[in-house]
């Protein structure tokens, strides 16, 4: 009997729990030659803003031990071109498309949600709240529970699409942020975004990134991400989407066991452009070999020691 891979994130049904992490899979097309895009649970596209953004000056990326720092600066084509060009291509793949959005103000987020709600082929919206709130002196929306609640509540009113709030890990207690999002009306939370990091070139004495600091991703952050996913899954009742250093079927299963209803694959796409498809197949085989009927049976199934 074929195991069931379908998962539900709120009222969003996915073929399987494997999605692509925003900013690491372009707008899908880039990976056509390596992955059967139609076989993915969902494609989450590079973060979109109201207006196009040029991004940061180079260097934008630097390798670290088992990870990388990036300071792309949220370069993107902007809402208009995304809808007119990218979505046209994305619709062809007959795969759920989740649009990741970013803004400087709550109003930005609201406009984006409003306008994306009417776009054919958009299955859900993921809100990147790791961006600085320009009206609040640039503190990231995602590091203050009150702001998380406000943003979520505001965008919730603007769209009926499934709403995923993407949480920042650079906080003392991520469960407070998750609850704030849940209370604000989020259908799900996804975590983690990158950890803030720095690297310095000892020859030039300059930071290795033009932007000085950048976001750490890759296998290096997996243990931190898994811990936060586990804590969050135990703190909220909405589905949790696990992200952070996932590069193999085993990694994916770890996140499911920790309580993630689905997972996203980011940096691993750069190491192995076929990895997303391989993990979809790997999860299928794992379920079959351990005769587990549905992937949902794995979610949160970690066995904790007594007492």
């Amino acid at each position, binding site marked *: 009997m074929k195991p069931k891979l379908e998962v539900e994130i709120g009222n969003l049904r996915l073929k399987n729990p494997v999605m692509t992490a925003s*900013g*690491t*899979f*372009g707008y899908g097309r*880039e*990976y056509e*030659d*390596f992955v059967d895009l139609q076989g993915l649970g969902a494609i989450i596209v*590079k973060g979109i803003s109201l207006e196009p953004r*040029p*991004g*940061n*000056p*180079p*260097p*934008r*990326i*630097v*390798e670290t*031990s*088992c*990870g*990388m720092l*990036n300071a*792309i600066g949220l*370069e993107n084509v902007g809402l208009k071109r995304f809808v007119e060009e990218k979505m046209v291509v994305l619709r062809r793949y007959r795969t759920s498309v989740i649009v990741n959005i970013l803004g400087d103000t709550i109003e930005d987020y609201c406009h984006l949600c409003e306008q994306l709600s009417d776009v054919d082929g958009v299955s859900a919206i993921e809100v990147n709240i790791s961006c600085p709130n320009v009206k609040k002196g640039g503190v990231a929306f995602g590091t203050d529970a009150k702001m998380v609640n406000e943003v979520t509540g505001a965008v919730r009113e603007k769209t009926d699409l499934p709403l995923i709030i993407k949480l920042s890990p650079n906080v003392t207690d991520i469960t407070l942020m998750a609850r704030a999002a849940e209370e604000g009306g989020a259908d799900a939370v996804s975590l983690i975004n990158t950890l803030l990091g720095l690297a310095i070139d000892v020859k030039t004495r300059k930071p290795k990134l033009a932007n000085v600091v950048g976001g750490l991703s*890759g*296998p290096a952050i997996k243990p931190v991400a898994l811990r936060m996913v586990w804590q969050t899954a135990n703190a909220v009742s909405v589905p949790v989407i696990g992200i952070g250093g996932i*590069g193999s079927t085993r990694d994916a299963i770890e996140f499911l066991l920790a309580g993630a209803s689905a997972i996203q694959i980011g*940096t691993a*796409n*750069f*190491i*192995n*452009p*076929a990895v997303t498809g391989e993990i979809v197949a790997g999860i299928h085989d794992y379920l079959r070999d351990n005769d587990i009927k549905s992937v949902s049976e794995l979610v949160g199934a970690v066995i904790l020691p007594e007492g």
Partner: protein
Amino acid sequence: MNQFLTKAQIIENVEVGPKILRLTFEAEEIAEIAKSGQFVMLKTATESSDDPILRRPFSIHRVDGKRVSILYKVVGRGTTILAKQQDEIDLVGPLGNGFFFPAEGSLAIVGGGLGIAPLLFVAQQALRQGYKEKDIQILLGARTSAEFPVVDDFRQMGLKIRTATDDGSAGHHGLVTELMDMKGNWTVLTCGPAPMMRAVAKKCEEKNWECQVSLESTMACGMGACLGCAVQGNVKHEYKHVCKDGPVFQASDVCL
């Protein structure tokens, strides 16, 4: 399909100069469609190790039948490990746009230091596309004679070569740009250190020759997904992506 992910059999991985090696592997699909100026990304981490995590980009140096070669210098972590590989290599390619050959006219191929790497394949392809030897001029610059690893490979193709070294140990004692004194109209294809390419582009502007430059930048994905390989375009705050818009650019389109 125009990009492939494969584990290729290594034919040879040998030193051809000071810390400079040529790696040749069998990769038929890539050999068939590769254009000069395109590159491949190699995984350097050994199996069951997650570090170094990122693939490393290398220009396609030559294509002979099913065989593809790269020419690389050992400069750090990845290339140190790469220099030890002998059985197989995990790679993605061909990537990037490649050089554009004009319908007719003459080609000046100008290389500096290891910039020579993609240029041998440029010469191979030009000849295969019917360019006459006389219509191709090779100009190579380096710090010293030791740094001309594969010059003979050009000679064996029957091409005119002129060299320049900073220390005068081989060819002209001076800069390679000082050799760009050909008459007539040339399309210049160049690869090398930034200052050298800047000089070449300047010379071309004076002579009003088309100039194509092959750029480098730190890369993560190599296929236009991460937006990490940005370089400054010709207008402020406008960036090009080396792996997708390049690595070959019209000199006038980028800020060298």
